[in-house]
């Protein structure tokens, strides 16, 4: 697989490629592909952070820095007809699943050309054609929706799988429970990826749950496990097994990916509530560094592992240029895109019959 192809196939519209994992023929290609995507996500997000510092972005920016192995490892191997339900920390998942960097950047910059046409920002949009189910801000609320999408695929005779993402803090919400219970009963083809980055905003894990997060999955009769979320190969292999299990109709799996949020909750948060030492400890576990060492020890040369590849730099620069040049929406579009009046109505009303007085209502 030419790892650059992903980027070069990208355009303003939806990305046509099948996802990387499907096309990866060999272990070598897989590693190269994962490495490429990790950098792609990292570089994209870092660029967004920079734009944000320059005041070019208005909304909340939630960096997934340090957690890229999760979105890359889970999404890389999915089929186009598989679906993902990413949340605020997962802008990278949009890229890996095949939304072009241009569109994602336009979305962040609230441009008219963005998938939400500027209606909302960040991950609050999606593209159902390439299997991206966006989220609202309401944490965990996309989880029952993921179940519905998965069950619908099954009703439609497809074996598509939905990967639903959520922060560890979001497991406290009722919707987490209702969704997983529903999914467990109906063996919905959904894989549940918990991104345990140790904090929910400022709140440390011991104030979010009395048990390790993966443990919760057992309450829904699903295989549940915690893995090293900074090791992209582990993430890839574990989630692919879970995806195949779901595809076979055997139901979901809860995978807690243990990681760390390297930045503040949002770019506005200084995260003074945590130890500098803790952050430094985790910096050493950086997922890109880890994969890189592994690859260097396994036959790759320094030249094969650019940081990042020029094509990525080009792709992101192009995305920024394109998005920046794209106009903001016209104000009047605020009242568009609310209703779909192209109803699937096939018959129209026959005339209303003479009104029949109903005898029971005397007084």
């Amino acid at each position, binding site marked *: 697989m030419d790892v650059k192809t992903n980027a070069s196939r990208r355009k303003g519209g939806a990305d046509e490629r099948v996802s990387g994992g499907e096309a990866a023929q060999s272990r070598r290609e897989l590693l190269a592909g994962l490495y490429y995507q990790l950098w792609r996500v990292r570089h994209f997000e870092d660029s967004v952070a920079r734009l944000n510092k320059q005041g070019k972005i208005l909304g909340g920016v939630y960096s997934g820095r340090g957690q890229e192995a999760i979105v890359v490892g889970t999404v890389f191997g999915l089929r186009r007809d598989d*679906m993902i339900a990413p949340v605020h920390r997962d802008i990278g998942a949009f890229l890996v699943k095949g939304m072009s960097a241009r569109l994602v950047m336009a979305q962040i910059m609230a441009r008219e050309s963005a*998938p*939400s*046409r*500027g*209606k*909302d920002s960040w991950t*609050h*949009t*999606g*593209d*159902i054609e390439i299997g991206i*189910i*966006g989220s*609202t801000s*309401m944490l965990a*609320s996309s*989880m*029952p*929706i*993921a*179940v*519905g*999408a*998965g*069950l*619908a695929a099954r*009703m*439609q005779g497809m074996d598509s799988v939905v990967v639903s993402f959520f922060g560890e803090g979001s497991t406290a919400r009722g*919707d987490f429970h*209702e*969704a997983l*219970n*529903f999914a467990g*009963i*109906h063996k919905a083809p959904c894989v549940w990826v918990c991104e345990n980055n140790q904090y929910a905003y400022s709140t440390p894990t011991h104030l979010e749950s009395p048990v390790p997060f993966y443990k919760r999955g057992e309450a829904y009769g699903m295989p549940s496990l915690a893995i090293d979320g900074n090791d992209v190969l582990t993430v890839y292999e574990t989630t692919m097994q879970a995806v195949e299990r779901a595809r076979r109709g055997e139901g979901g799996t809860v995978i807690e990916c243990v990681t760390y949020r390297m930045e503040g909750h949002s770019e506005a948060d200084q995260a003074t509530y945590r130890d500098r030492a803790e952050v430094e400890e985790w910096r050493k576990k950086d997922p890109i560094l880890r994969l890189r060492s592994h690859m260097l020890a396994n036959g790759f040369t320094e030249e094969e592992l650019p940081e990042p590849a020029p094509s990525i730099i080009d792709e992101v620069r192009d995305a920024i240029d394109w998005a920046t040049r794209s106009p903001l929406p016209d104000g009047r579009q605020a009242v*568009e*895109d*609310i*209703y*779909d*009046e*192209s*109803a*699937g*109505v*096939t*018959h*129209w*009303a*026959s005339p*209303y*019959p003479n*009104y*029949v*007085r*109903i005898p029971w*209502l*005397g*007084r």
Partner: protein
Amino acid sequence: MHEVTFLGAIREAIGEEMRRDPSVFVLGEDVGVYGGAFKVTDGFYKEFGAQRVIDTPISESAIVGVAIGAAIKGMRPIAEMQFMDFISCGFDQIVNEAATYRYRYGGNLSVPMVVRGPSGGNVHGGLFHSQSREAWFTQVAGLKVVMPATAYDAKGLLKASIRDNNPVIFFEHKYLYRRVKETIPDDDYIVPLGKARIASEGTDLTIITWGAMVQHCLSAAELLEEDALNVEVIDLRTLLPLDKTTILESVKKTNRAMIVYEAPRTGGYGGEIAAILAEEAFEYLDAPVVRVASVDAHVPFSPPLEKYYLPNVTDIVESARKLAKY
């Protein structure tokens, strides 16, 4: 033509749409083997199987959420709330997820789904089996809100709702379920959303109403004929989008308007309609816009309390007389 109850009409609508379109399915608590708490889906489990008639756990938020997920993936789910009162437990999914999806996708996505269930009081249901909560939803763009008053409309509006590409909140007044019997056509028909119905024509006074109150208002209109008062009764049928044209035309003709609804007076949807009249029909109004509604309380259980709580035919008649004389 055949005779059906209000409930039977709803059942027919769902059954016929499920037969017509394989993307239509139902989900909710006890809707399967049992056929639903009110037996709306009676027999469907046998006919359509467990895949299309899904008995859910007690999870209103998941019921709505699963319906949304299925809808954006191309299905046409019909989610039943065992009582509409429990919609409060799935509230976020409706107002923040279902209602906003299309907007957030810049128009590139539809959410064709119906959330339906029994609503309203006058059945000794108490605080949590009697609520009229349509006004929580009429303020949310992206939703449609429907509330039929006749069996014919119940069937036609529900079919239109199922075929509509937007999330529709469909309130069925449970007082009408078995008390209403009507003769309706055998053929497939729909009643378009967004069109009010003149339930009774008149020239002296317009009553705007919906749901079970339509019957009260028609009874009142009959009684008022004895006073030689000629009342026009508008049954809104769809609350959102609102058929302003029909309302305004009527009031411009009669110059007197009264709004009758079952929810508590304060904050009910009647306020919105009165506001529209006060702004857009001001020149035509010869008298105050009167609202007859329930008192500002919860729906109480004990019969004397519920009787006092609910607006009744006498209230309507008396208010109409006063209004006509104004």
